[in-house]
């Protein structure tokens, strides 16, 4: 509990810093909103000539895309340092300072630099999800609310854990870019019904980089469709498993750093 209070204070201070850069804040807000809306329009545009895509109706696809956006927006608030970890902390040596403070190294990295405007993506996603659910005639009972909340939280955490695993690779190989960019480019694949992809990509999204669990499987459960709706129940477990893996990778990395450095 005490630790949480410290992290909250750290988080609040860093938030204040971001707000102080007003131009930066507004530019980021604008870019995020534009990005979020354009990917939404892309889905709408796609359905102008066709009625359905691999058996999925427009509103159903919007539900997947909206859920995915909600998770992504939450993740993007802290993703900055994970993407730049190798560059900022290992190569430029900021990790020394992190090790000198009596709190968790991982929490310090997450709190140290984050973006608040990207939450616009979560807000837009929420709007899309609510509209899609309404048009699809899915009720708005407590159960549905809970389901969406858990799904979004699990999705955001899954992103965090996957990119933590990739960031911890930087402890072992000094490289400015790191291995995250190709995986980052996989995120949009999770916004579509997986039936449209060939089997190698489906397998990838299910078992290797499991972004299918962020929005696609939960949507099948919410819509009560197909044979895959049971997979949604696995979503929290997949997140948990990646959390454990991320913690192990991080620890291993920190130990490696402590014994090399320069």
């Amino acid at each position, binding site marked *: 509990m*005490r630790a949480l209070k410290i992290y909250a*204070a750290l988080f609040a201070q860093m938030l*204040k810093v971001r707000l102080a850069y007003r131009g930066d804040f507004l530019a980021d807000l604008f870019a995020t909103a534009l990005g979020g809306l354009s990917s939404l329009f892309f889905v709408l545009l796609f359905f102008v000539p066709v009625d359905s895509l691999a058996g999925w109706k427009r509103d159903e696809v919007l539900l997947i895309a909206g859920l995915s956006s909600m998770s992504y927006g939450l993740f993007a608030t802290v993703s900055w340092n994970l993407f730049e970890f190798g560059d900022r902390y290992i190569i430029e040596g900021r990790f*020394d300072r992190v090790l*000198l403070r*009596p709190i968790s190294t991982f929490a310090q990295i997450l709190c140290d630099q984050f973006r608040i405007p990207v939450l616009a993506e979560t807000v837009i996603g929420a709007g899309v999800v609510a509209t899609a659910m309404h048009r699809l005639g899915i009720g708005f009972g407590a159960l549905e609310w809970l389901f969406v909340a858990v799904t979004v939280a699990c999705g955001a955490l899954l992103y965090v854990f996957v990119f933590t695993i990739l960031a911890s690779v930087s402890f072992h190989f000094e490289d400015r870019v790191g291995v995250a960019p190709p995986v980052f480019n996989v995120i949009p694949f999770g916004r579509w019904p997986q039936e449209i992809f060939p089997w190698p990509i489906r397998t990838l999204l299910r078992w290797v980089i499991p972004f299918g669990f962020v929005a696609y499987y939960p949507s099948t459960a919410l819509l009560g469709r197909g044979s895959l709706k049971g997979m949604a129940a696995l979503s929290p477990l997949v997140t948990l498993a990646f959390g454990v893996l991320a913690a192990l990778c991080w620890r291993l990395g920190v*130990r490696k750093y402590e*014994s*090399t450095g320069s």
Partner: protein
Amino acid sequence: MPAVIVENLEKEFRRFRRREGLAGAFKDLFQRDYEVLRAVDGVSFSIERGERIGYIGPNGAGKSTTIKMLTGILTPSGGRIESLGLSPHKQRKQYVRRIGVVFGQRTQLWWDLAVVESFKLLLQIYEVEKRAGEARLAKLRELLALDEFLHIPVRKLSLGQRMRADLAASLLHGPELLFLDEPTIGLDLVAKDAIRALLKRVNDEFGTTILLTTHDLRDIEALAERVMVIDGGKIVWDGRLEALRDEAGEEATAEIELLEPAALPELQRLLPQVRFEQENPLHLRARFSKRAIPAAELLSRLVGALQVADIALPEPSIEEVIRRIYEKAGKSAMVAAQKQGVAR
């Protein structure tokens, strides 16, 4: 019981040696050569509570590596550290709560936060009891004259202000041990003095043990009671500052300006206990030990034997002694470097 015990401390780095050219870079993909670098090579010492130690050595001697091991940032490759009864790298969180660290080259503060916000955050991170924290901050504000820049973001501070802020930050949680890696680097004389005065006061008032590295020997003269010299990863000298001073006092130099060129071999025969160096035909330097020949006697015999225009006896400095220690150690370090094999 000593505050810090270090026994046979070692640190090896494996460094990837790149081949030259494009063909070499391609070859590197498949087969890599590593060289093993022993940055710290069997260092032992102990530090008592309340000591002020200057830790010096030429660049690349192993100073920073030692400090990084003492602060728990790096894990030793061999040997043992017991500091405040803890193992720095194994009990990191518990340990760093009780130490303060300042790196002159890099700030520990948050670049974008106002100084006072950084301090408040640190007080929370270190879980300093509220009233004690406020009292300490008030004291540091006064001692380091922090008020003039308390509300300015760290990135806008001058180097001298930043250093004062960093120093205050390292002391906020009342550390028992304070490590400073080149705390005066790049500072002007006034700022250096302020920092030296503060460190001395902190040591006097709170009994904080201080270990600092520096290249400015005036830091050592103003602050250190004890000096450790490291070179080639080994401690080559460890003793009281007075011992260094005595050595410096004993070894003296005379600068001699001549009217006529002197015959050096003859002079050397006349005064075998003195080492002569010839800068140019009209400028000699005589190095001698005051025990072997008193300065007055040397002068009178020089004046008798030579056409002297001027003689100067520069104040002997610890700088000279340390230069000699470095030189002596440099030779043995070169031999050690040759012994290091290339591992694959």
